[in-house]
């Protein structure tokens, strides 16, 4: 008798699989992903990579009711059809559900594919046999759009990537930036959601000597769930800058997995997580240095008015990756007793000539700073707001991304700070 090890599925897991099936046009590739989802279920707290984000439990709270499938089928959840203006005026907007409609600028090719997003491989360094984010993405039928930037092309305007807004949004994109090229990409993750999560999986291959700035601008409605993943390989002497802004969503997991693809590559990651009551936001990153002489700096700053924040950061340095210089920091301002934050920085170093470091802090507003500002006549609430703003604005400044984009991001942060205090 062949025994398949099957643990009982929770109602949420069953509901998620049913949702995936109900959205289905019948096709083999997707069926395999759905079967894998059925088999694997959702990760829970005993799975190391998901310890602080017990997806099975958290989805359980969202996908509880029996009426869910019918409700989703009947589209009872409001679709947010509002046309967004791009984060930066003049951007090339790419709807990942219909990428062929985008008008590609010079040096850029944008196409749709029929390929189901790849979920079999798990090169995401989380030591999981099957990657949950990709699996959900594929099971719900995400197709990988492709974007290619030609060698040496300098694309002036940002390319803004949008997944479908609202219900059942699952998108994937494969971006290749040629040698010596320069480009800016903005992942725009907005809108409402159903109790089931939306997902967006991006792959970015950066050619030698290229410079790429990638912005993840996540501001889902406060009832939405989202699973995001960005996979990056950074070519020799190439520069990868990343900014992650999480300013919404009820349940969010954003993963970033970066790996060097040549000597002298440079990775600069900054991020801001802004959390309000009842939110659960998880940023999980891995940096793999497998070539000599690469550098990385990674800093996330978090402001919590409530909710649960998670940061997991892993830096892996392979034996041959001598002269790696990698630094990681996670700083949290807890502005309410209702908020909590879990930070798990990890270093795994096999080379012997490296500089690596990590640090995590959590605390309240610095009392000395507050006193100094107040002693100049700035009332307490205003002084606190100034200090919170300074704390997160520094992340934008440190990235040195120019005035237009910098101000656009700062404005989004300020808008959140102005409405949440």
């Amino acid at each position: 008798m062949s025994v398949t090890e099957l643990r009982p599925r929770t109602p949420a897991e069953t509901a998620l699989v049913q949702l995936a099936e109900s959205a289905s046009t019948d096709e083999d590739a997707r069926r395999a992903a759905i079967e894998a989802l059925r088999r694997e279920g959702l990760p829970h707290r005993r799975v190391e990579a998901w310890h602080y984000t017990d997806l099975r439990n958290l989805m359980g709270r969202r996908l509880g009711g029996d009426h869910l499938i019918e409700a989703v089928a009947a589209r009872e959840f409001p679709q947010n059809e509002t046309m967004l203006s791009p984060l930066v005026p003049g951007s090339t907007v790419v709807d990942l559900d219909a990428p062929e409609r985008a008008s590609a600028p010079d040096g850029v090719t944008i196409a749709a594919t029929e390929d189901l997003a790849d979920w079999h491989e798990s090169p995401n360094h989380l030591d999981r046999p099957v990657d949950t984010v990709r699996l959900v993405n594929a099971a719900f039928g995400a197709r990988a759009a492709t974007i290619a930037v030609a060698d040496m092309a300098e694309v002036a305007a940002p390319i803004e990537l949008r997944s479908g807004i609202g219900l059942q949004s699952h998108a994937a994109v494969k971006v290749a930036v040629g040698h010596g090229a320069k480009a800016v990409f903005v992942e725009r993750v907005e809108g409402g959601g159903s109790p089931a999560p939306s997902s967006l999986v991006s792959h970015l291959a950066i050619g030698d000597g290229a410079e790429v700035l990638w912005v993840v601008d996540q501001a889902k409605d406060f009832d939405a769930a989202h699973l995001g993943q960005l996979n990056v390989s950074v070519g020799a002497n190439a520069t990868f800058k990343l900014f992650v802004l999480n300013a919404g969503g009820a349940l969010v997991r954003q993963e970033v997995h970066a790996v060097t693809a040549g000597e002298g590559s440079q990775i600069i990651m900054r991020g801001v997580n802004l959390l309000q009551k009842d939110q659960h936001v998880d940023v999980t990153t891995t940096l793999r240095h497998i070539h000599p002489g690469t550098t990385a700096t990674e800093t996330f700053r978090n402001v919590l008015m409530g909710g649960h924040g998670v940061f997991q950061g892993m830096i892996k340095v392979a034996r041959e990756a001598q002269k790696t210089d990698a630094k990681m920091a996670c700083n949290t301002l807890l502005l309410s007793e209702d908020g909590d934050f879990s930070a798990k920085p990890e270093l795994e170093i096999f080379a012997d000539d490296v500089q690596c470091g990590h640090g995590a802090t959590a605390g309240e507003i610095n009392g000395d700073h507050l006193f100094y500002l107040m002693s100049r006549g700035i009332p307490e609430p205003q002084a606190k707001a100034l200090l919170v703003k300074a704390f997160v604005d520094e992340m934008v400044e440190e990235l040195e991304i120019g005035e237009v984009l910098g101000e656009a991001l700062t404005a989004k942060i300020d808008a959140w700070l102005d409405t949440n205090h």
Partner: protein
Amino acid sequence: MLEIKNLHARVADEGTEILKGVDLTVKDGEVAAIMGPNGSGKSTLSYILAGRDDYEVTEGDILYNGESILEMDPAERAASGVFLAFQYPLEIPGVATMTFLKTAMNAQRKARGEAELMTPDFMRRVKAAAAELKIDAEMLKRPLNVGFSGGEKKRAEILQMALLEPKLCVMDETDSGLDIDALKIVAGGVNALRGPERSFLVITHYQRLLDYIVPDTVHVLYKGKIIKSGTKDLALQLENEGYSQIIGEAA
């Protein structure tokens, strides 16, 4: 201007009593110097005047223009005209100096029911005051005090003082960390602000500062009490004889 009456205060956390009955009066337009050895309570007194909540007043009162300020928070005290020039001005990364100056000036104006400054007017005031103190524009573009040398920080304090136009200026060891040229610039800035309606409480270790900011009265603080008061000659006497002579007399 200022009347400190039998002021007792302790560290709020641990209860150590630092001030043990300070009595001091500063008249309108007066420059009063407070001198004293390390640990006598000088900096504590300045923090308490500014309203720092790390200290707890257990007895006595502080009257500013006849009214107690003990219940006012630091911002309210500042808006009413109290200014503390810090011994160690804080570096605040991410807060632009100009944003800070404008926010502070307008917050005080708002608290006093005055109209907010428009940007051109604000810029003109900052430029004029900065020029007096030999503060260049590059310095003002940096985040507040970040990367400033000790002398630059002290000049930035005086710049803030000039722009905020306080009535009572408490200066905590403004001379510490200054070379003689910087000291002259800072003292010049202070002297320019002297007037019949503005009083100063100048806290210092050394008589040197008082060569440049000449006080009307000098008070010796020791173990949390004023043990001797006099004219500027008292500072010279302290410089020559040290504190031990006066402490001996008071004991």
